[in-house]
């Protein structure tokens, strides 16, 4: 009814990636305009690499209207930490790092064993950092296709003064009129790439020619096969009795805590090959790679309620 032929042609250049990109840029700018003290959570992983490109598109030639922050578990892959620092420097943006090691030292986090997964405790360090800096909004790279509790979360997700998410009482979120209002002590988690899938992320990385940590590409690595997962051998993960170490071509689909993030067998050496594998895989990103989400049916929901990303 509204269209004429000429405009139709222009419109066909607007792909689904363009639509997702435009939505994400709009969301970031709303945060910048409406929140007094936002921060962007940057881990060095692929989703947050995409967030940074979206922030460049939203705010350049200005500096970002927020700093970057990483919650360092102390269990990160060294390649990822190196990349994190390199990318922040390249962008010329301020990077805040708060580490779980400090939370452990100060007795805020008490581990049952030294090498256990630290993912569940990230929330403590994150919430401490939020109150230290008085952040009222944290931009994160979570996607709804990752996990069934995330599939339920709003783009502007309200957290009470205890950092908690109440899935049964979320604010209505209509059109793209986001409600970013908080009282002191409360905060909003904002997920600009909520509607992106793993495949969208890889297609965008390809289209924008984004650099990512090397361990996302296929490489040789020592792994242990345990419960049909490949565990990367490191100072945190050593073979148990009866297990053997194999050297395999693998790549990571996510880069989290080294003690519980598993690579997948792969020959994909560039983005295009990763896109092919991603389109064909029959296992979800978390199912293939995150041991910590398998422990209980609702582990992500529980962690999110406690203040996790």
């Amino acid at each position, binding site marked *: *009814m*509204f*269209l004429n032929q000429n*405009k139709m042609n*222009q*419109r*066909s250049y607007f*792909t*689904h990636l363009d*639509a997702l990109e*435009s*939505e994400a*840029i*709009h969301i970031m*700018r*709303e945060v*910048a*305009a*409406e929140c007094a003290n936002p921060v962007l959570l940057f881990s060095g992983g692929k989703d947050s690499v995409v967030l940074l490109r979206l922030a*460049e*598109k*939203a*705010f*350049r*030639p*200005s500096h970002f209207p927020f700093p970057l922050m990483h919650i360092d578990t102390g269990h990160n892959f060294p390649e990822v930490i190196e990349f994190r620092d390199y990318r922040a420097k390249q962008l010329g943006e301020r990077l805040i790092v708060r580490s779980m090691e400090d939370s452990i030292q100060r007795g805020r986090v008490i581990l049952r064993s030294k090498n256990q997964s630290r993912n569940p405790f990230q929330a403590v360090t994150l919430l401490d950092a939020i109150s230290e800096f008085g952040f009222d909004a944290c931009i994160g790279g979570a996607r*709804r*296709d990752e996990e069934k*509790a995330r*599939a*339920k979360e709003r783009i502007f997700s309200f957290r009470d003064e205890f950092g908690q998410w109440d*899935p*049964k009482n*979320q*604010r*209505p*979120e*209509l*059109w*793209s*009129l986001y*409600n970013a*209002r*908080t009282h002191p002590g409360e905060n909003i988690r904002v997920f600009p790439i*909520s*509607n992106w*899938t793993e*495949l969208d992320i890889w*297609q965008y990385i390809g289209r924008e020619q984004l650099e990512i940590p090397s361990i996302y590409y296929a490489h040789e690595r020592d792994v242990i096969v345990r419960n049909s997962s490949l565990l990367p051998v490191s100072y945190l993960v050593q073979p148990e009795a009866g297990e053997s170490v194999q050297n395999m071509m693998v790549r990571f689909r996510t880069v989290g805590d080294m003690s519980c993030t598993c690579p997948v067998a792969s020959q994909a050496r560039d983005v*295009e090959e990763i*896109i*092919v594998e991603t*389109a064909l895989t029959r*296992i*979800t990103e978390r*199912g*293939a790679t995150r041991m910590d989400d398998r422990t209980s*049916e*609702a582990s992500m*929901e529980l962690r999110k309620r406690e203040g996790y990303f």
Partner: protein
Amino acid sequence: MSVVENIEPDHAELLRFISAGSVDDGKSTLIGRLLHDSKSIFEDQLNAVTKTSNKRGMEKIDLSLFTDGLQAEREQGITIDVAYRYFNTPKRKFIIADTPGHEQYTRNMVTGASTANLAIVLIDARKGVLTQSRRHAYLASLVGIPHLVVAINKMDLVGYSQEIFKQICAEFSVFLQGLGFRSIEYIPMSALLGDMVVERGDNLDWYSGKPLLDYLESINIEHDINTLDFRFPVQWVCRPQTEEMRDFRGYTGRIESGTIHVGDTVTVLPSGLTSRIKEILLYNDSFETAFAPQSITLTIEDHLDISRGDMLINGGELPRITREFDAMLCWLSEQAFDPDRKYIIKHTTRIVKGLITRIDYRVDINTMHQESVNILTMNDIARIGMKVQQPLVIDAYAQNRGTGCFILIDEVSNNTVAAGMICIQES
């Protein structure tokens, strides 16, 4: 990137749809069936759902578990909040919002509906048209969803009777008349067994239409974005405070409707000042033209005082600049409307104080009659008058979704309490 395009055409059209209807009509089961039969379920998801179903003593997998992801939902076997799922076929990319049927959670249904191109309203063939079926169809039309599919579900429980299908269609079509959908399609199905969802099945041979997925893949979704009237609400002003960029002023935002070219004259509202577009930028790219719904940065020829909340337009149909307007309002909060409380209105990128000055009527969903009331409670839909502290630049929602919608926020609790759609009578 030839391989990439083979796998998922980059130009694939995006269709956003919701499932709606009354409690237990099978919305979540339908979405599960659609994902399952279109091979969009991953092995580990299937294993997890199979395990949970077995634990509960079910022989077959419970398809609703693919979307009912919250603990409370699984315990109670109901949907509480919208779940978003993504899948694609070689023809299209889909974003699904599975919405709850319980009246108590209507606001979550509206959340899902506000961004959809198409709604599937389910009806249980045994029960026929219920209040909630009507409510959801009406809400879908109110938020301007152009396309409606009426899925008459659980046909397996009525012997796949064509007679029953016809009766329900006849009854519902009377109600749907005048709701303004651009297209309406009735499809009989069994979400549980799969008939007429992805496959035709053997039980509904008397039905000559397409199965649901075929229909979703092929329906013509002319964009409901208005491509004529340029509307650009300024989101954030980009002023790099650096030596070489001292004079740079970029107006960032998303084009809500229409098209703009370098050199076009633009008027800034509400001030009325004019200038011309100098550049259309996005990061390292610059464009000659941009169109809705692109997010871009604009620079103009003159130094004008422009800030967040202002709107750039360019000829065509003019918006209104006003402090008073009428709207259809959905009250979403458990806390009833209180004339003594202050509300904040968010419209485009503008946030101002607002008052509801009149309640003209409330709509009775069953009869579509207008009732006079002086209070609004959760899930009420009413025609109201609004007055705001500073002028807003508005269009009628029917002409322009982006500049015709608003939300009300309670100033004390900060909750989003209502959603509004602006009405403008032709003068």
